[in-house]
């Protein structure tokens, strides 16, 4: 398959969006098209996997508006993985959405599916971006296309939250990320992602820390504190949105961008030698611990999951900034592992909302007895968050810890251990509560399981969470290419 066909990965969901828009009058056709697009896209993306895994780096330039600034696509291991996760989970999420949207009789479903397809196209663009300009372009499209999804309900409270969402994401990207990109361009004359980095020798030492700051805070989607407020705000969206976008596509796009910038713009070796860049691990550590503590105090299930996500995102940043090969692999793997776990948790939250209209933690007492499949999946997801084998979360934590030991980075080790404890503290009580506690008083318990479409999706992701513990070799092979050139 020639590199010229790379743009098809972007065009497919776009065409899907158009087709969905046109078929809005017939819900069955519309949803069939959604599903078909998702499946085709996933097949297409996965068909690239063997090539990239074997070392191919297909690339294509679409246009070059300014010299050194082009709209170009390429596939490399990190992007390959992100594209695979996002496109695959889109299928499952589409199935889930159909159940959820119909089950809750949501309005404006066509707009919902159109924007969803656009968001996926943008996520694919981010995954395939060959340079910072392309990355920024799709980053902004992703923000804009998810705004209608967040504001879906359209009441005053939702709009206010959506405004926070948009304000922070657009504000940081224009205010910080864009200057960082321009700075990079002015200093180096290019914005192309290059293994080993392009900054070395072009930006003086102390300024590297500043530039790094502009990048990591500018990529607001990575939700590093203090630019994390948009993520809890985004929880006003329908659950499928929270599940795929705010556990996978959008937030992972954020940490993916950070990882990509650190590996391909700064260069791992170069950054390791820069004392001015060390502050980032303190910020990441702070974010992990404090987000976990805040999660501990949440009473709303989705908000708790949001804060858990913030902490988990900073795991990836933490792992990346350890700047050791094993940790970089850990960072990449954690993107995948957390995706499976967190989407399961959100699916479960959505299932509970659909079947029982419950959103608060105290309402969940004894719910496991009525919704065993849902809560079973929830338990698996929660275990993965904590990092208990045999779940995917264990694999990534293993690599990150190994990297931290390799670097003798005790801050990282301490943070990971502490946060594991905190994760256990807020997830285990829920599990206990849901399965073993007596039914909560004054709560309507006359409900059963969620619709089958939802259960199917839930089951698949839960299975993946466990499956990832056993079958992670292809991914490890792929990502180890990132660090081949690095000394161990």
């Amino acid at each position, binding site marked *: 398959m020639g590199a010229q066909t790379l743009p098809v990965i972007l065009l497919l969901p776009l065409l899907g969006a158009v087709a969905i828009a046109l078929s809005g009058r017939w819900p069955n056709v519309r949803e069939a098209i959604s599903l078909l697009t998702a499946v085709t896209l996933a097949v297409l993306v996965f068909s690239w996997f063997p090539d990239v895994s074997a070392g191919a780096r297909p690339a294509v330039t679409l246009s070059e*508006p*300014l010299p050194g600034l082009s709209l170009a696509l390429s596939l490399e291991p990190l992007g390959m993985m992100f594209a695979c996760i996002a496109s695959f989970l889109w299928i499952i999420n589409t199935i889930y959405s159909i159940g959820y949207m119909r089950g809750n009789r949501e309005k404006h479903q066509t707009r919902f599916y159109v924007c969803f397809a656009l968001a996926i196209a943008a996520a694919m663009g981010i995954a395939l971006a060959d340079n910072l*300009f392309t990355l920024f372009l799709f980053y902004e*499209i992703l923000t804009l296309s998810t705004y209608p999804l967040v*504001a879906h309900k359209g009441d005053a409270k939702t709009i206010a939250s959506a405004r926070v969402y948009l304000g922070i994401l657009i504000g940081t990207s*224009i205010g910080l990320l*864009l*200057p960082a990109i*321009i700075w990079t361009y*002015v200093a180096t004359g290019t914005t192309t992602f290059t293994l080993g980095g392009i900054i070395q020798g072009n930006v003086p030492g102390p300024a590297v820390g500043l530039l790094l700051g502009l990048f990591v805070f500018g990529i607001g989607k990575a939700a590093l504190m203090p630019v994390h407020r948009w993520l809890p705000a985004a929880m006003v969206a329908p659950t499928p949105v929270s599940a795929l976008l705010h556990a996978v596509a959008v937030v992972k796009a954020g940490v993916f961008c950070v990882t990509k910038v650190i590996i391909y713009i700064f260069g791992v070796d170069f950054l390791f030698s820069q004392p001015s860049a060390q502050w980032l691990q303190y910020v990441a550590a702070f974010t992990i611990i404090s987000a976990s503590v805040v999660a501990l105090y949440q009473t709303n299930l989705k908000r708790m999951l949001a804060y858990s996500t913030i902490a988990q995102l900073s795991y990836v940043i933490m792992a990346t900034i350890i700047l050791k090969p094993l940790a970089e692999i850990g960072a990449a793997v954690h993107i995948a592992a957390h995706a499976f776990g967190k989407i399961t948790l959100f699916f479960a939250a959505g299932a509970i909302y659909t079947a029982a209209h419950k959103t608060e933690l105290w309402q969940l007492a004894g719910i496991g007895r009525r919704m065993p499949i849902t809560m079973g999946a929830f338990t698996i997801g929660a275990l993965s968050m904590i990092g208990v084998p045999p779940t995917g979360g264990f694999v990534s934590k293993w690599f990150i810890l190994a990297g931290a030991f390799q670097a003798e980075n005790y801050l990282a080790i301490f943070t990971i251990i502490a946060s594991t404890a905190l994760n256990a503290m807020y997830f285990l009580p829920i599990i206990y509560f849901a399965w073993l506690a007596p039914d909560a008083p004054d709560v309507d318990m006359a409900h059963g399981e969620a619709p089958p479409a939802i259960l199917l999706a839930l089951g698949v992701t839960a299975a993946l969470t466990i499956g990832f513990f056993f079958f992670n070799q292809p991914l490890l092979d792929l990502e180890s290419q990132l660090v081949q050139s690095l000394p161990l």
Partner: protein
Amino acid sequence: MNLADHLPALQVALPLLTAPLVILLRTGFLAWLAALLASLVSLGLALLLTAAVLETGTQHYAVGGWAPPFGIALTVDGLSALVLLLITGASSLALAGGRQSLRLDIDNRRAPMFYGAWLIAMAGLCGIAVAGDAFNVFVFMEISSLATYILIAAGRDRRALSAVFKYLIIGTIGATFYLIGVGFIYMMTGTLNFADMALRLNDVIETRPIIIAAGFITIGLALKAAIFPLHIWLPRAYTYAPNAVTVFIAACSTKVSIYILLRFNYAVFHGNLLGHSDLFAVFIIPLALSGILLASAIAIYQVNLKKMLAFSSVAQIGYIALAAGLASQAGLVAALLHMFNHALAKGTLFLCVVAFVLTSRSATIANLHGIGRRMPWTMAAFVLAALSLVGVPGTAGFISKWYLVTAVMEVPGWGVPLVVAIIASSLMAVVYVWKFVEVAYYGKAPGDDTAAMEVALPLRALIWVAALSNVYFGLFPQLPLALAQSGTSTLLGGLN
């Protein structure tokens, strides 16, 4: 007879001479059709001229066969071609898209006069763009100004009249200041031709009259270009003019004044007045900066969509002035590019306003709640153009903002504060744009009416062509870029 040699003259003469024919027509429709055709042919001529400039460089033309500096010369370089494309393009777009809206604003009997004035305004602006003679610029400036006053006075709101009177007074003061400056220069050099002037100024540099001349010309043109705080005429004039007229003038009329400002300050004074570029920068940059910041802030609080966009224009003119004030290669390219790109974005936005007002009879934001659900196609185009205004990548606005920021970063010492100001203003642009977009999509429609009410397909198609051109020139900016670069090199020719 090879007509291709006469393009610079035809560019002006064709629309100018069509105007008297148009006022003799009997019906509004015929007048409109004639004006549209003349406008489209002018666009074609502008494209031919652009091609000629890109192929063979600057085009010279001696009107009446008298060689300059004795006769009047016409010169068309990359910059002129860029401005010509803007003028004729905006006019064609506004005429083509504004038919329905203009028919409501102007009764059939008066319409021939109106379209005649329209063509004269366009021809006047073209005349400025091709002129190579300082006094000729004054004449055509007055032609276009008088005609523009008529166009604005055609607004249905009576405030259009008070706005246009203010514009007339300020415009005349600006033009007279310009004329005084030209007089001082003539007094010291004995010539009116731009190129000749630049040469002959060498002998009389640093004399008091020349310095005063630079002052008068800069202030006079800044008045006409609505550079903050000399912009007071602009918001009301844009707001109360007929909507289609706003599309036309917002896209090009102030830009033409900036064009002459640049011509004079770079091609004429730059190489001759010691420290002129510094003085120019000291004068223009603070004004530009305050315009960028304050006008953006004021725009946030507007309740009328047209007025909001008008204040946004003041801020955007600030960008152009800022970039031009940097007196560097990169800065000028940024200024010229932004002239083009801003015209694209504003033209599209005001065209969307035409559509909104056609269906909902009001440009007040409060009356446009929910318009996004009722007119999804138009609103989507509006959002696209608004993104270009903000400078989101993939749109034309991004390209010029990119150039602007890279140019600003070259300024020693001031780079970072200037970048911060630009970014702050971009964020304010997000705020005022989004304030409208949000209520357009999620606001409760007046009377809870949710019936779809899109405008007719041709207008919708035109709006989308305009909106997509914002994207096209964001991805393939080669044409404006080439013109801007060629324009910059002629402007800075005085330097080397």
